[in-house]
Structure formats: C-alpha cells, structure tokens
C-alpha cells in the first residue's frame, strides 16, 4: 500500500531532482501526506453534492409549480384576449355601426360627390340627404300565417244595368286574383 503510494507521490518531473539529491548525504525527509484534509474534501464534495442536488431538485419542482401557474395564467389571458377581440369585432360589426349611426339620425348618402382639395372643385352632384333616404337595416317583421292574418275578401258587384237587373244576376263573390304578368315569351 505504502509502496504504491510513494510511486504515486513522486511525480515524473521530480526524478531528476531526486537523483541529484541522492548525491548529497541528506537524511530522507519525505513526509507522509496527511489524510484528514483529503477525507474532509471528499466528505465536503459528497455532502455538497447531495445538498446541491436536493436544492436543485427542489428549485426545479418550485419552477414547475411556477410554470404551471404561469401556464394557467397564460391560458386565462389568451381566453381573455380572445373574448376582448370578440367584443371588439362585435362593436366593429357593420350592422352594429349602422344601427348606432341610424340612432343618430344618419342616412346613407344617395348621390356620391367629392371635393378635390387641390382646387376646391366639386365633383359629382351633391344632394342634401333627407329622412326619406333612410334605409331599413333590419329584416322586415315576419309575415303572419294566413290563419292569423286572412286576406281581405274582395267582393265584385256587377254594375247594375237596367237589362241585367234580374233576380238571377245577384252579386257573385269573386276572390280577386293576384296581379300577374303577361304569359308567353314576355321578357323585358
């Protein structure tokens, strides 16, 4: 064990010096290396390593908690952002804008007209908007079924001419036919 140690303890570059030293008569003073610091070092390394690993693991776990919390928060924020962008889109919806404009009494201009800023020329035929230009922006109210809103009954009474005034020519009830266009190849 000690031979092995001395072999280890003598580094190669020191051999020359050793040889020279042997020439002089000097007592051998190779000291035995002390063990304690080495053991302390190993224990320190080992202890430090374990403690470090434990600390590292703990901090990793802590970071994982933090990451989970942050991820949840990110999810919540993403959802919030989406909800807000939905709200924004709803506000920018042309129908909503038109409804608000209409509430302010605005109408769509009928005749386009422009002012050329370079020389102040008016292009187009500007006409003042009137309430008549207002446009319905909501669908018409639903038509009631015929049971609830029966068609007006139109009764045609034949004009009473002296010749036709006989008991048989009593007024006949005729439903008015809906207006119809000419048949055949009638194309406009």
């Amino acid at each position, binding site marked *: 064990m000690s031979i092995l140690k001395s072999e280890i303890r003598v580094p190669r570059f020191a051999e020359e010096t050793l040889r020279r030293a042997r020439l002089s008569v000097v007592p051998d003073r190779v000291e035995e290396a002390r063990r304690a610091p080495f053991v302390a070092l190993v224990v320190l390394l080992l202890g430090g390593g374990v403690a470090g690993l434990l600390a590292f693991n703990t901090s990793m*776990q802590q970071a994982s908690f933090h990451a*989970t919390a942050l991820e949840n928060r990110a999810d919540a924020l993403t959802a919030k952002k*989406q909800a807000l962008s939905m709200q924004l889109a709803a506000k920018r919806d042309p129908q909503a804008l038109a409804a608000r404009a209409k509430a302010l009494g605005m109408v769509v201009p009928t005749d386009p007209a*422009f002012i050329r800023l370079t020389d102040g020329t008016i292009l187009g035929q500007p006409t003042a908007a009137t309430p008549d230009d207002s446009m319905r922006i909501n669908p018409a109210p639903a038509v009631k079924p015929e049971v609830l809103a029966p068609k007006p009954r139109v009764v045609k009474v034949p004009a009473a001419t002296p010749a036709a005034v006989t008991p048989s020519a009593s007024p006949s009830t005729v439903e008015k036919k809906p207006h119809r266009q000419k048949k*055949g190849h009638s*194309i*406009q």
Partner: protein
Amino acid sequence: MFLLVVAMVVSLFGVRLFQLQGLDPKAYAAKAREQGAVTAVLPAKRGEILDRTGSPLAQSVQGRMLIADPALTRPYAAVIARVLADRLDVDYFDTLAKLTKKNSRFQYLARRIPSTQATAAVTAIQAKIKPLIKDKEKRAVPFGGVTLMSDPLRSYPGKDVAANLLGFINANGQPSGLELSFDKLLSGKDGKQTYEVGGGNRIPLGQNTTVEPRNGKDLELTIDRDTQWYVQRVLCNAVEGSGAESGSAVVMRPGTGEVLALADCPTFDANDPSTAKKGTLGAPSLQNVYEPGSVEKVLTVSSLLDAHKVTPRTKITVAPELHVADRTIHDWFTHPVLHLTMTGVIAKSSNIGTAEAATQLTHEQLYDKLREFGLGSRTGVGLAGETAGLVPDWHSWSAVNQATIAFGQGISVNTLQMAAAINTIANHGVYVSPSLVKGSATTDSGQQVGTDHTTKRRVVSTEAATKMTRMMEMVPNPETGTAPGAQVAGYRVAGKTGTAQEVDPKCKCYGNGFTVSFAGFAPADKPAFTVYVVINKPTNGGGGGSIGGPAFSKIQSFLLQRYGVTPTGTKAPNLPIYWGSDLR
C-alpha cells in the same frame, strides 16, 4: 441469528423483485404510467377567414361547454339556474329542468361559451353555493355539480355578413360553405403532449413527449365586409319590397375579377344556424340556376358587333310578333311594327328585334361565344357545390332555340357566372375569371384558386365592347330606356334589365314566377364596378328596371363613394333609338 434475519429479509426482497420484474413487468409499468402520465391534445388553432381589409369574418375562440351532474345540482338548481340565466343568456326554466332531471348524471347546460365567460360563471356558482353547503368537509372541496369541458367556438362577428359563403361549423364540428371547401387549410393539425403529473404539477424530470400542433392557415377573401353588408341590406330591402321569394347580388371589379360582394337573401346568422329558415343555408348565388332573360341580350348583341354583323345604328324592323317554326315570340310590350335601331332593341329590350338580328349568327357561332363568356362552365371560385349552368349543345338547336337563347331563354346560369359575363363588356371585351380568394389557396379537392390564378381571355374586340357599352348607356336613360331607376346622379351608367319566366321544376315548364334582374357597370367610360342584382319571384308586378334598377343604383352609389371613384366628367352619347317613320 442476525445473519439469518438478514437472509430472510433479503430473500423476501428477492421474491418481490422477481414478482415485479419477472412475472409481468409490462403491466406494472403501464399501471405506473397511467397513474402519473397525462396525455393532452394540443388543439391546433383554426385559421381565420378574413375580408380583403383583414377584418375577421370567421374567427376561432377558446370555448367551453358547461355540464351539469343533476345528482349533485338538484338541491341547488334554483341558485345555479339564476346565475346561468343572468350570465349566459340561457333560458331559466330550461336550465332548471336540466339541473333537476332524474336518473341522469350528464346534462349540457350551455355549449360553445367563450372561455372567460364560462369560467366566470362557474366561479360565481361555486361562490353562491359554498355558504349553502352544511357539511364542513364537503364545503372545503369545490362544488363539482357544474363542470367545464373544452368546446371549440367558431365565431362570426358579422353574424349574417357573407354567411351564405362562409357557411358554418355545426354542433358536431361538421363544416359547410367555404369552411368546408378549405377545411384542410383552415384546420391545421392537432398536437399531442404526454407528461407525468404529481399533485397537478408537471414532474420536472419525468417522461415528456411533445408533438407541436400545426395551426391552420388564414383564408383571405376578396370580399369587402362593409360592402357585403350594404349589398345584403339593399338586396333584402329589394326582395322584401317587391314581395319576392329570394334574391342575389354580385359586385365585381372589372379588371381583376375580384368579387367584392356576393350576397344572398334570405340569409342566416352563421353564429346560430339553427334559427335559419329552411333552405337558406347554402349559397344560391352559386349553387342555383335560373334563366338569365334579357340581360343575356348583351352577350348576343356584342357577339354580333364583334362579327361586324350589326352596328349600334343598324336599322331593324320589329314585327308585332315573330313566328319561328311552330312558335310565336312576343315582346314584353304590345306594339305595332316598330322601326328600332340595334341600340333601340337593347334600350327597349325587344325580344323580336334581338331574335331577328341573331339569325345572322350560326348556331355554332352563338354557342361558342356564350361559352367564351363563361356560360355553361363553373367559375371555379372555390366554393363546393357550384353549378355549371347549362348551355345546350348547338348540334341539337332548332331555329326556335337560336331565337330564344339569343334573348336569354333556354339556357341557365348562376348569378356569379352571369356577372362575370357582363363584366367582360366592362373589361373592354376580355373575360376575367372571378375570384373570391385573395392570393392563392388550395381547396380540399386540390384545386388552386384565388386572384393569383386569374385567367383572362379576349371574347369580343375592344371596339365591340365599347359600342355595346354605349348602347347599354341608353337603358338607364329615362327618355329611351327601361330602367331609369338605375341611374347614379353625375355618373355615366351602362346596364341592362332582365325579366325571365321561371322554370317550374315540377312540370318542367314555364311557371308563373319571374326572375327579374339588372346588370351593369359604372362609370360607363371607365368601369370601376360591375354590379348584378337578381330577384326571384317578385309579386308586386315589377320588372328588372323597377326592382333591380334602384337596388343597382344604390349599390353603385355606395361603391363609387366608398372607393372614391370620381365622375369622369364626360357626356353620354345620344344614340338613335328609332329610324324611319318612328323617328321623333
């Protein structure tokens, strides 16, 4: 003694080791994984559908469904229903019934609710219920009667704006419309993540595999949301005002073929398609056919002009009625023998005059021209289910077919097809294929569509197109034409009315219904927009001029203003309508 104890303990360990590792190691490993591992689907975000300015027409939002366990909610039903009715726009009594349902442990309370709203509602419920729970131990645990689950939400902020084109995604996740045609492009690919969990938190050095999701791509349309909205409202007013059944309208840019608006009426709210009336969910403007009627005369006459068979001043003697083979052709107005110029035939919309002039073209020539104008073939804008319309093969034509097809009967088209055909005249005789998609996109069927794939072809000469335009300018002219209502003050407008009888699908004969329409463009000498309005089955007795014309004018006025198109300042030519003895 000590050694014996050690040996026994060690052998016990040995037996256990053998049991774990030797007998069925895989089952144990799987069990362990099951306990700790969580596999989560990382949902790919569905792409948005945007209009030409980047405003969203369809967007995806994190959604949640609210689920109740009636076994748990029954005692607190009134409280829960109150909160939900206040916050989520659900019916109080319906909710109450679901919350107290017997023999059930799963009830949908609300679906596709934005995540924040849903979470807030559940938090509110828990806060309300907590003080009501008497058991201390149970109070410590969050109330589990109402829970949340992921439920992707597709939102259409414009509601009915372009709904007929966009389609919607139904409760089962089944898309329709453009959502269906571009489903692959929009949906992307879901990812997956597997990781180990301890106490709700990820174990840092545990097993962890992630497949990143591939988000869907956005689809940008050529549609202008505000224009689309306005066109839809004007169209619906025209439909309702004339007591009509339905209608459609198209706005196109002549040079590029971009479709700024493609409207159908009636339409529906894409957020809530279940409330739609029956048969209104598709896009009739692309999927239904009708006979174009007199608007088609523009195509016939421009073909005649292109072949140098007529000029705008060609004198035509229009008989009161025209006998072709065994059929008699009438005009929409009764008249004696009229002396109309070719321009007059267009301005007055004479069937007889057009049929007479069209005899100068062979069947094949007329057929070929109509096909070149895009009739009888799909526009290929990318919406699934588009119809090709029908132009019968010329080999089977008789003289009657030639005569009626010349004024728009006996062929069928869809609205966009016909708009693109009229757009050819606006674009100086060059047909431009219409586009709904800005840039380029691939449909699910592998077809590449969009403005990057626009095709152009010359159909009639520039000269013929210009002459045709001048003739069409006489139509909105109150002194000469059939559609004074189509004028736009200060601008030159070219257009053509159409009134065609509708074919009854039952008897395959002409029914009582009419399809009235107006197609045109402005400014006539520098076209900026082609607009086509079609109204089906009006009941107020109006025609293309009186119903379609005013709608056309409103849409054109809006467009010219919105896009800042100033009047050209030129004067419309005054072409003669009559000749000979009718000249006044």
